[in-house]
């Protein structure tokens, strides 16, 4: 797992994207902003998990990202149905 400059650049960009998503989550005035921020952070975390699994060179680590890809939208859908008033 030798880190070259490409990997470090990608990790830094993913961290900045994570921080920006968290800023929107903390600032966002309505519930919809926060739910969309949660979804965005979830997708960024999935991408970073895949990338770190590639850096660690162990492909069994991709299962965590797979679980996030499969289950990540369920919480967003439940909160959206609650905001719609149809739950």
């Amino acid at each position, binding site marked *: 797992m030798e880190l070259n400059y490409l990997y470090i650049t990608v990790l830094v960009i993913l961290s900045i994207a994570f921080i920006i998503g968290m800023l929107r989550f903390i600032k966002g005035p309505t519930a919809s902003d926060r739910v969309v921020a949660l979804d965005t952070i979830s997708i960024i975390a999935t991408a970073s998990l895949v990338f770190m699994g590639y850096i660690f060179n162990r492909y069994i680590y991709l299962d965590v990202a797979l679980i996030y890809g499969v*289950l990540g939208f*369920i919480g967003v859908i439940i909160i959206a149905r609650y905001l719609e008033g149809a739950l």
Partner: protein
Amino acid sequence: MIIYVVIFSILAVLLVASALFAIIQKDLLYAVIATGVISLILSVMFFILQAPDVALTEAAIGIALTTIVFVITIRNTTRNEDEKEINSK
């Protein structure tokens, strides 16, 4: 290796920030969304600590089951924290 320490520190600060947000917030739906964010950050931290099975369990439980149970609870009770006390007076 220093880049993992930096990322881990950033995630720890964000974890404490969202935990404080979940405690202070009076609207309980926002607190539930903050719980989902806490679970997400914890999962990435477990992943960096080379524990992918713990991260797997945390992801499956935290993002799906906890959110569903808490939202159904909010649906059956009240959304705002102070509303119950006003109604009881």
